[in-house]
């Protein structure tokens, strides 16, 4: 190691800084556009199941908004957000919370983003929430599930919204469905990925079951495969040996598909009743291979559950999306699209209230808080957590294969109202579950 002379070092440090500082110049906000950052998983295992469908769903809506070609009820509100064209920045959500926070700051402070509509993973949302509030950046989470966003991380949000129900609703809806349709089930076990989402899903379902069907035992050997492990032979044996007839699973994407291939090869689905909380991400892709007879959820009235909703908006969305991406829209597509619609609704409403002039962020926030707007296939009520957390109806059904149409369909579908599955305003989801879901209106 040699002593190195100052100028060399100074210049280098300076260069580094200069390079960096100089780039602040690149902050260019075109006056007449709204810059909307749309982060989703574009790489890695999250991409096919959620990221890409979500990105595409958002893209379809954004382009229609810019063209002003959205059908009713958005057909009269003119082009763009409050008249301004959307400039969309699609980017990758991969790399973990830390990296996403860094990226979030870059997008805000360097690329002059006006609002974010995106983030799929609960982990990212949890990491982003405090920063979004700190940077006063309007941020709409269309998908991520963890209740902790507004229950722990920020109880009084101003800039952060979530436009779909959180994970608690899934567990409750699933449990209610089981109670209604399998009253004499002998017990239940589960197979969930060993990470936050899997753990939360199992906990909520388990808690709800303990309330609704207290004398139905849960297995103490629920399976916890490592996420993305892809090999489930041993777990499948264990499940087949277990005495519980019902298996709860929040597997998604590649893991789910691998589990289904390996399971059906061994007749698991003939032997056990499976309950998949997010399997809609794969049903179209799996086609015939999808396990008919399994109980399915889509975290709300999305994807395959919206297949038969006959409204101009939904029919248009399914058609445009299917034509363009040659596959029907899945849950993620609907949820992301719903997030963009929330922005559309809020900007236009705020502009109207503002005498037609383009609204300030605070006005947009005021417009969105507590409002109710039309999602692709269902009404969205922003009536939880001071009007920042949405509640929608929830749907659970049984998957079947429709020979005539040659496509998977949902049968025995049960609808649950928003107030039946979501905790009442101001109530912590887990406590609500433990307390017996008081105040639920079904």
């Amino acid at each position, binding site marked *: 190691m040699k002593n190195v002379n100052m100028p060399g070092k100074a210049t280098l440090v300076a260069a580094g800084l200069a390079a960096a500082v100089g780039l602040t110049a690149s902050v260019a906000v075109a006056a007449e556009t709204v810059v909307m950052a749309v982060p989703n998983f574009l790489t890695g*295992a999250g991409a096919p199941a959620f990221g890409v469908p979500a990105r595409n769903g958002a893209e379809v809506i954004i382009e229609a908004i810019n063209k002003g070609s959205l059908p009713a009820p958005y057909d009269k509100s003119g082009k763009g957000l409050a008249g301004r064209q959307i400039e969309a920045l699609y980017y990758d959500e991969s790399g973990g919370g830390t990296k996403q926070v860094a990226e979030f700051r870059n997008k805000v402070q360097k690329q002059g983003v006006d609002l974010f509509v995106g983030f799929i993973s609960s982990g990212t949302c949890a990491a982003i929430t405090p920063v979004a509030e700190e940077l006063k950046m309007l941020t709409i989470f269309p998908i991520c599930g963890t209740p902790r966003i507004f229950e722990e991380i920020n109880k009084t949000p101003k800039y952060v919204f979530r436009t779909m129900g959180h994970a608690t609703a899934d567990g409750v809806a699933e449990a209610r469905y089981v109670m209604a349709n399998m009253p004499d089930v002998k017990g239940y076990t589960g197979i969930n990925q060993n990470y936050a989402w899997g753990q939360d899903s199992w906990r909520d379902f388990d808690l709800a079951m303990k309330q609704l069907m207290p004398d139905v035992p849960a297995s103490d050997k629920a399976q*916890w495969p490592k996420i993305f492990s*892809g090999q489930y032979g041993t777990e499948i044996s264990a499940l087949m*040996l277990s005495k519980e007839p019902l298996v709860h699973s929040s597997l998604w994407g*590649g893991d789910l*598909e691998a589990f289904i*291939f390996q399971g059906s090869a*061994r*007749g698991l689905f003939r032997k056990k009743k499976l309950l998949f909380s997010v399997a809609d991400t794969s049903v179209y892709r799996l086609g015939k291979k999808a396990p008919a007879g399994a109980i399915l959820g889509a975290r709300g009235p999305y994807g395959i559950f919206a297949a038969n909703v006959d409204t101009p908006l939904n029919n248009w969305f399914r058609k445009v999306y299917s034509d363009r991406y040659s596959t029907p829209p899945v849950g993620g597509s609907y949820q992301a699209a719903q997030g963009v619609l929330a922005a559309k609704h809020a900007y236009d409403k705020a502009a109207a209230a503002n005498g037609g002039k383009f609204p300030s962020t605070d006005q947009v926030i005021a417009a969105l808080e507590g409002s109710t707007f039309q999602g692709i296939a269902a009404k969205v009520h922003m009536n939880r957590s001071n009007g920042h957390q949405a509640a929608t109806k929830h749907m659970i059904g049984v998957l079947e294969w429709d020979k005539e149409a040659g496509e998977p369909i949902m049968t025995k579908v049960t609808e649950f109202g928003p107030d039946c599955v979501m905790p009442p305003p101001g109530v912590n989801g887990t406590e609500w579950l433990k307390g017996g879901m008081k105040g639920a209106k079904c």
Partner: protein
Amino acid sequence: MQELIVILVDGLVFSSYLFMVAVGLTVIFGVMKILNVTHGSFYAFGAYMSATLIGIYYETDLPEFGGFVAIFLAAIIIGVVFGIVLERGLLRFLYHRDEHIIVLATFAMFLVLEDVLLMIWGTDPYFAYQPMALLESVDIAEMTFATYNLTLIALAVVVGLGLWLGLTQTKWGKLLLAVIFDREISQAMGINVTVVFLVTFVIGAIMGALGGAYIAPTISVSPGIGVEVIVLAFAVVVIGGMGSIPGAMIGALLVGISRAAAVHKFPEVELFVIYAIMAAVLALRPEGLFAPAQARKI
């Protein structure tokens, strides 16, 4: 009793999976002393290629079992192409550098290939379940197993024995052992180390690709499968003793069986099994399974 048998079978299947995932890595490390992170890419590309070929194959109405040919074909194509390109195009320029620099270079290469994969195949998953469906299932101890998974055991045994015999019984193998023993001396003895390295790397690449290609029918071939196997393969190879093929076999069995037992008995700890074993083996037998560099002649 039944559970015991089931654990054993599950364990064997998973061990075979681990072995197939790890063997390519150990072959390359054994001869070239390179810890090859791109191994993960070989696995992923092998899986994608296999899924693609299988897909094409079952478009035709040729006899169904032919799908298996597609699997091995995929492994060979990927292995040969990537093996040659990487060894000639990258590694040979690095042989004189520190071993950890080479590891990092392969890590960088892995990052690059992850995106190349996306460019070629996109983000949508590929399915190739036909071969698994074709073989249907068998019952052992009143438990249904997928025959395809059981064939994995056979494959692992064949590959393991094949490599081991090839290494100890053939002229080529003896050359390799010479190179493993002392690179300089074997050069002096007129062994063409360059060729030995190239061939070894290609074989290792084929093995890595074969792992992916053969697993492909049981999984959804989608982005990110490569990164998952890297740490797995590292662990197995490290437990078994780096560069030793019997070692990799032992390591795979140790991990596979213990994991199966864990899943059946204490599912909660599944996540730790492999690393716990890895750390334990290293902690308890520093000079054993895991021999450090021998003392130099002084």
